[in-house]
């Protein structure tokens, strides 16, 4: 199957020349053993998309310069500090300045280094780097950018190390360097002679730092990259040995929980029974902190009991008395007008509301802090540890250099851990107690007070004439998504250099990520954000899942109005062959157009982002027997019975990891469209746990799932972490509309149904643990 690149290759290298043979500059670093470093010394400006028939839309920003480019440009000045070390024991180690929350970037980084150095994957040690302020903006894990931004610098460093080891080995063997090779940590010479890396680590070292030119391995010689690799921490996971922040045994860091206000962002006034609570079993400390009343105890259970016993008078929160409707009214009032008036020629209008979604991961917000007079040390799953370090230093009144931030592997993030609320609170608590703390949010707090994906509206107006779509306008209006400090600095710094320049921060991200991949004539997309009183974050993307749902539903509506099949319509209007490639793949693999029973249907969705393209073909069952199937304390509703998903994300490092990320995105999409949302009521979010917030469960997940990785000749990897959602969201919404004959006006479709649960109280703040667990054994 032929696939065209959306982006033109770098101009100076010609059409078919592999990026692998270009020269890069690396550094040999003065050190006792071999230490190498690399910087990005190249410019790669992506060309405009190829033009296609129908009425062409002018190129939109993401087609020439997208968020991944912005993030990479933001880190160019400091990428030279990415270092690989060859140790005396022959191991190769690298501290990745990123945060792994399950997306598999430790494994893929091991693969990249192993490839360049002819090692086995398990011969490379990759750890997560502590906060390194000298990296400036180059230690942020967000926007699905890790592999895209680190791929080349890591290769450059690894190739340089490999070259030095070959030279040192050749010298020791007294052979020509061109005749020696490397395999599994051995330098192999003629006549069966070999020398291990351990014998060369010091010999290959340098006493002066110097710049060296290096060539990377050619793609056609790859033996590791592109091969399915299981996660290298899998054995630790299945045996319970993988250590998360709250599993760490830091001396005297006792369990600490905060008693929080009933209102969102309410703050503590006075406490009536401090001394009583201080004398409860196991409790060591109780103190007021800015966000509530902190309790430190021997066990988390005792800390939670003490939190629930506290009698606190609370000050109002930031949205006291408000609810979904009052916030929605505010958002609707901020919707920007369309350029084309309604009712001119044949126009279709659609508007949608997307309700709050919780970014709460299974591991709740947590952090260990040990704050002393002259220094502080913290351990937590942080995607932005440099910014956290700066803020912790302020809280503690310490210089930044006196604060050490250890990045632990996280139990899921999906965007939330770009923020470091728990690190700041842990520092506050440790400072207040004068003792180390292991701070963990309760699930109720994580759900009600934790960051959310904001409520938003999507409006689309399209005008068509005969077989052409003349104009397509989309407006996305949202409660503000906080992008600072998570993405703020690098994006704002880089975005001003982007072609459109001078956009406000959120508008920049919207403009850099959102593209309408169809030739729909005059096409406009605008964002407006209001209301900064909420704790928000991206959640496997900021805008795309909502924007794509609105767009893909509208595409189906246009197809219907113009008398076309949704697949044929997309095929005709998609902007290029790469997009048509993934659409064709799902149509073929998923048997688009096959006969479906009444009450069931197929639906399609397409999306482009992260230097990639993807498509989803979903089958849904909306028949009453399925919708109403009984599950105790669960939401059933329509069942997505089959998903066929095709992705072309450029060069694939680890297909098994890529497939896993798409699978996760697909399960997220099911939750966003069909089952899970938060409800704002009387100034707080109602949902307090997983029996209120209905994330996808085994009984919701599709029994049939087929993920197709479409071969790509793109020279570089794109971004995968968030890419599975958008197309799937659109496809589910379309399948639902086709099965039921009703186009939803809000998502998830069950948001206005009566609660299938009794809301939990806000005072006391944490639901008491049951005592009847032994009644449910199996």
């Amino acid at each position, binding site marked *: 199957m032929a696939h065209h690149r959306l982006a033109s290759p770098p101009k100076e290298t010609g059409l078919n020349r592999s990026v692998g043979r270009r020269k890069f500059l690396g550094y040999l670093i003065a050190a006792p053993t071999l230490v190498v470093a690399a910087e990005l010394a190249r410019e790669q400006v992506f060309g405009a998309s190829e033009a296609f028939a129908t009425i062409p839309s002018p190129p939109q920003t993401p087609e020439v310069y997208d968020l991944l480019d912005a993030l990479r440009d933001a880190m160019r000045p400091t990428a030279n500090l990415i270092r690989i070390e060859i140790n005396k024991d022959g191991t190769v180690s690298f501290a990745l300045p990123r945060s792994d929350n399950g997306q598999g970037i430790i494994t893929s980084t091991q693969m990249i280094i192993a490839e360049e150095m002819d090692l086995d994957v398990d011969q490379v040690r990759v750890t997560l780097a502590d906060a390194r302020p000298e990296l400036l903006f180059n230690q942020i894990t967000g926007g699905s950018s890790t592999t895209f931004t680190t791929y080349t610098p890591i290769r450059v460093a690894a190739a340089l190390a490999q070259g030095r080891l070959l030279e040192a080995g050749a010298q020791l063997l007294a052979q020509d360097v061109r005749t020696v090779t490397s395999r599994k940590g051995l330098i192999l010479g003629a006549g069966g002679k070999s020398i291990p890396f351990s014998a060369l680590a010091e010999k290959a070292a340098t006493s002066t730092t110097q710049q060296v030119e290096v060539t990377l391995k050619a793609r056609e010689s790859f033996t590791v990259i592109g091969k399915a690799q299981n996660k290298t921490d899998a054995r630790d996971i299945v045996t319970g040995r993988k250590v998360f922040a709250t599993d760490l045994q830091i001396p005297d860091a006792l369990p600490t929980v905060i008693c929080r206000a009933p209102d969102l962002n309410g703050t503590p006034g006075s406490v009536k029974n401090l001394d009583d609570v201080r004398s409860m079993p196991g409790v060591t400390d109780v103190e007021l902190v800015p966000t509530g009343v902190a309790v430190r105890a021997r066990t988390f259970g005792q800390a939670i009991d003490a939190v629930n016993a506290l009698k606190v008078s609370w000050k109002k929160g930031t949205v006291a008395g408000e609810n979904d409707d009052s916030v929605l009214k505010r958002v609707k009032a901020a919707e920007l007008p369309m350029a084309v008036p309604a009712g001119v020629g044949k126009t279709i209008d659609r508007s949608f509301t997307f309700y709050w979604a919780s970014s709460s991961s299974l591991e709740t917000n947590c952090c260990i802090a040990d704050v002393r007079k002259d220094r502080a040390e913290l351990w937590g799953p942080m995607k932005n540890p440099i910014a956290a370090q700066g803020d912790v230093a302020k809280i503690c009144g310490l210089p930044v250099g006196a604060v050490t931030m250890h990045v632990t592997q996280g139990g899921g993030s999906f965007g939330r851990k770009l923020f470091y609320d728990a690190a700041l609170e842990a520092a506050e608590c440790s400072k207040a107690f004068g003792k180390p703390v292991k701070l963990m949010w309760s699930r109720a707090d994580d759900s009600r007070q934790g960051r959310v994906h904001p409520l938003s509206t999507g409006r689309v107006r399209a005008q068509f004439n005969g077989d052409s779509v003349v104009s397509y306008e989309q407006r996305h209006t949202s409660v503000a998504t906080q992008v600072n400090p998570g993405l703020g600095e690098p994006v704002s710094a880089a975005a001003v250099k982007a072609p459109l320049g001078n956009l406000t921060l959120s508008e920049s991200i919207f403009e850099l990520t959102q593209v309408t991949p169809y030739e729909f004539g005059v096409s406009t997309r605008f964002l407006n954000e209001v209301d900064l009183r909420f704790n928000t974050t991206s959640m496997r993307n900021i805008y795309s899942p909502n924007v794509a749902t609105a767009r893909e539903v509208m595409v189906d509506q246009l197809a219907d109005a113009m008398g076309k099949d949704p697949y044929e319509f997309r095929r005709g209007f998609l902007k290029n062959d790469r997009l048509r490639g993934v659409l064709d793949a799902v149509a073929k693999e998923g048997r688009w157009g096959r006969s479906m029973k009444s009450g069931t249907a197929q639906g399609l969705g397409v999306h482009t982002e992260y230097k990639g393209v993807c498509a989803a073909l979903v089958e849904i069952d909306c028949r009453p027997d399925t919708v109403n199937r009984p599950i105790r304390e669960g939401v059933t509703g329509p069942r997505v019975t089959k998903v066929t998903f095709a992705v072309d994300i450029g060069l694939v490092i680890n297909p098994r990891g890529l497939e896993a990320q798409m699978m996760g995105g697909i399960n997220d999409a099911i939750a966003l469209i069909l089952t899970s949302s938060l409800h704002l009521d009387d100034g707080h979010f109602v949902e307090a746990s997983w029996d209120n917030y209905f994330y996808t469960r085994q009984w919701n997940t599709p029994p049939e799932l087929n993920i197709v990785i479409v071969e790509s000749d793109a020279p570089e990897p794109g971004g995968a972490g968030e890419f599975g959602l958008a197309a799937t969201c659109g496809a589910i919404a379309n399948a639902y509309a086709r099965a039921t004959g009703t186009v939803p006006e809000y998502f998830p479709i069950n948001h206005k149904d009566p609660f299938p649960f009794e809301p939990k109280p806000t005072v006391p703040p944490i639901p008491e643990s049951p005592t009847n667990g032994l009644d449910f*054994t199996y």
Partner: protein
Amino acid sequence: MGTHTFTLNGERVTVDVEDDVRLLWVIRDMLGVTGPKYGCGINVCKACTSHINGKAFNPCSVPVGAISSDDEVTTIEGLADGEKLHPMQEAWLDRDVAQCGYCQPGQIMAAVAKVRQCQEEGRDVDDDAIEEIRNICRCGTYNRIREAIKAGAENM
């Protein structure tokens, strides 16, 4: 304060703590066995799923006072036979199930118990049986979990 003795992963353990402290915190905070995870504390997310006398249960919802001295509690750490993994753990590795891994100890312990239950009741380990498992995976690894359970069941 009471003294509580039971068997944890084959070893006799004794702790001095109030009767109403839930077993999860005794295991994690006092005994330092951290495989079972906190995810909700109200027997909903099932991240702490372990076995009591061979059956799946959630220690977040059992007071330590309800555990008797002849009870045998097994966490994920006690599932393998030394370095020889349980067939379900092997299936998890083979299918590369885990992403972040936080919920996976509970998922595996639930899967083992569900397969044993099906075998005892003469039922197939099919989609219906797997959909009785309530453990949440926020990374969305459900599809690989289903494959792994079916594969692991064949070797149990």
